[in-house]
C-alpha cells in the first residue's frame, strides 16, 4: 500500500505562549514548534500498515523550523520518502492554505491512503484531514484508532465519546484522521536519527502561493484567566461538607 503521512508543526505548550503587540496573533519570538502529537500516531499507524502489508510510506510536511529533524526521525522509524514544502510558510499557516498546498503534491504521489493526525491544538479553521480529503475528492474518516485493509477496502475503528467504537468500511483511496495508532509511537535511538541524517534525502517541493481563504480572521487573542490557588472552603466539618454539596449542585453533578 502506498501511504502518505501529513505532518504539521504546532506551538509547544510547554513554553508559555505570548500574544504579540498586534493582539491578534501569537508572539513567535520564543515559540517552539513541535510535531503535532496525533501526527506522530498517524506516522506510527502508517509504519505498522507498511510492516504488516508492504508498501511505501512518504512523509510530507511544511518547511517550518525543525521540519528536517521531524522528517529524519520519521525516516529512522521506517518511512521511505521525505518531502518538505518550501517557501512562503509563516509559523502559523491556516489549514485551508496548508490543505491546498499539500493537495497538489499528494496528487502526484497517487497514494492509496493518506494518514494525518485527527486534530491539532491550534486548528482554527477545522482540522487538516477532512479539508485535504475533499480537495482530493477522497473519503475521510476521523478519530480513527485502528486500520486493517482487505483489497480495495479498509476497515477502520472510529472512536466516539464514552469508549464506543464504530467499525466502518471505507473504500480506498481515502484519508484517515488518526486519533491513536494501534500501538504507541515507537522510540527511535538518536544514533539512528543521526544515521538517517547522513543517508536520507529530503525532497523539496516549491510552493507558489498560500491561499488562506476559508478560515476566519482573528481580531483579538487573549489568555483565559490563569488558574489561581484553590479557593479554600472554611468552617467546621459539617459546614464544609454542606458547601461541597452545594458546589456539586452548581456543577450539575448531583
Amino acid at each position: 500500500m502506498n501511504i502518505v503521512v501529513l505532518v504539521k508543526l504546532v506551538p509547544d505548550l510547554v513554553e508559555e505562549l505570548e500574544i504579540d503587540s498586534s493582539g491578534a496573533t501569537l508572539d513567535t519570538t520564543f515559540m517552539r514548534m513541535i510535531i503535532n502529537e496525533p501526527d506522530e500516531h498517524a506516522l506510527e499507524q502508517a509504519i505498522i500498515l507498511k510492516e504488516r502489508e508492504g508498501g511505501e510510506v512518504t512523509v510530507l510536511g511544511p518547511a517550518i523550523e525543525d521540519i528536517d529533524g521531524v522528517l529524519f526521525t520519521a525516516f529512522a522509524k521506517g518511512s521511505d520518502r521525505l518531502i518538505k514544502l518550501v517557501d512562503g510558510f509563516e509559523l502559523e499557516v491556516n489549514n485551508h492554505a496548508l490543505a491546498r498546498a499539500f493537495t497538489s503534491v499528494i496528487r502526484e504521489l497517487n497514494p492509496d491512503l493518506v494518514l494525518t493526525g485527527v486534530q491539532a491544538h491550534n486548528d482554527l479553521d477545522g482540522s487538516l484531514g477532512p479539508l485535504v480529503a475533499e480537495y482530493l475528492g477522497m473519503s475521510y474518516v476521523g478519530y480513527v484508532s485502528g486500520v486493517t485493509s482487505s483489497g480495495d477496502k479498509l476497515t477502520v475503528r472510529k472512536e466516539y465519546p464514552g469508549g464506543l467504537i464504530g467499525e466502518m468500511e471505507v473504500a480506498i483511496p481515502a484519508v484517515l484522521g488518526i486519533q491513536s495508532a494501534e500501538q504507541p509511537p515507537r522510540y527511535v535511538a538518536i544514533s539512528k536519527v543521526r544515521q538517517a541524517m547522513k543517508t536520507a534525502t529530503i525532497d523539496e517541493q516549491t510552493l507558489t502561493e498560500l491561499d488562506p481563504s476559508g478560515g476566519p480572521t482573528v481580531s483579538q487573542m487573549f489568555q483565559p484567566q490563569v488558574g489561581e490557588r484553590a479557593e479554600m472552603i472554611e468552617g467546621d466539618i459539617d459546614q464544609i461538607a454542606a458547601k461541597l454539596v452545594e458546589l456539586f449542585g452548581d456543577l450539575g453533578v448531583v
Partner: protein
Amino acid sequence: MTGPMALDTSKEFLNQLITATPDGERIRLCLQCGACSGACPFGFVMKFPPHGMIAALRAGMLDTLVDTDTSWMCVSCYACTQVCPAKIPVTAGLTTRIKEEMLLAGNVPSELQDALEKAQRYDNPLGESPRKRAEWASGFEPEIPIMAKAKRPVDVLWFVGDYPSYHAGVIPSTKAMAKILQALDVDFGILGPEEVSDGDSVRLAGESGLFEMLAEKNAKAFDKYEFNEIITTDPHAFNAIKNEYPNLEISYPVRHYTQFLAERLDQLEKLMKKSIEATVAFHDPCYLGRVNGIFEEPRQLLQAIPGVELVEMAHQRENSLCCGGGGGGMWLDGFQWEKAEVRISEWRVREAISAVGTDENGTRILAVACPYEPPRFEDATKTVPGAAGLIVKDIVELIAEAMGLEG
C-alpha cells in the same frame, strides 16, 4: 533468530564488547561465580542477571537477551562491578551495551521512552521548559550570576543539573547550595538556560547518541566562558564531566560539591554556629562513592556540623545500596514496581531506621548528596513502617541550616 546465524551475531557482539570496552578482555575471565548477580539489588528479578548475560552471549542468545525486558531492572549502580573477583567492567561494558541493543531494537518501557523523548526535545528528562532552567534563582538575593548576563570570568562554574533546577523536592537544596557559596564568597556563575542535562543517566539507560548530543551542547556552553573549574550538585553530572566527556574531547577540571566544600571546612566550621542535635545516617550515592571513590568528604562535612552524630548503615561506602534512581531507574518507577513489587529506596530507608534508631523523640536524619535521592527516599518514608519521623535532607541543607542560612 536461532541456530548458527544467531550464534554468529552473538559472538560478533561479544567480540566487539571485549575489544571496544576498556578492560573488556576480562569478560573472557568470567567463571560464572554469580557474585555480580548476588550483589545486584534487582538480580532476583532479572531473567538474565549480569553473569547470566555473559552466559547467554556465550550461548549465542543475544536476541533473547534483547527481547528480555527484565534487563531494564539494572539501575547501573556498579554493585556488580564492585564485587566481581575478575574485575570485569560489568556496568560500563556489559549491562549498558545490552541496554543500548534493547533500545535500538525498540524494547523500551514507555515511561523511559517518555523521559528520553523529553530529554531530546527539552534537554532535560523532566520535560520542563529549557528557558526556565534558572527559574529557581529568580528573585534570589543576592542575585545568582548567569554567565551570559554576567559577561565576566568566574572562578567556579556551578553545573546545577536537571533535578536541582526543576524538581520541587530538590530545589530547596539547590537554594541552600547557592546561599553557602555566597556566604563563602565564592566567585561563581551558572549557565542558566544554556546548561543542558549532563546526560549520564540517559547514557546508562542505553541512549549513547542522546548522551553525545547533550554533552556537545554543554561543551558549546563551557567553551563560551572563562572559569577555573566546574563544580556539580549531581554526582551523575560529576561522573559524566570527569569520566565520560573526555572521551568526546571535552575536558574540564570538575569536582563534586562535597569535595569543594570539604576543602573549605575551616571556613565552614567558623560559620556553622547553630547546633543540629540529630542522629544522621549518610547514604553514599553510587556515582560519588563506589564509582568515583569519594567517601570521606561528605562524612567530614557532616561531622563538622555541631550536634550531629554520624552513624553508618549496613550498606556503606563501596558497598552502598543504590536508591534505585540510576541507569534510567528514575524513569522506570512503575515498570520496576510491576516487576519487583518492591522499591530499593524502601530497603534503604529500612536500613536508615536501623541505623538511626526508632526513638521518635530524637531527630533522625537520612543525609544524601545526590538530587535523585530526596524524592525517592521521602516517598519511601511514607510507606516504610516506623519511618514517618525520618527526615531526608541533602548535606548542603544541613550545612546551610547550621550556618543559619535557611528560609
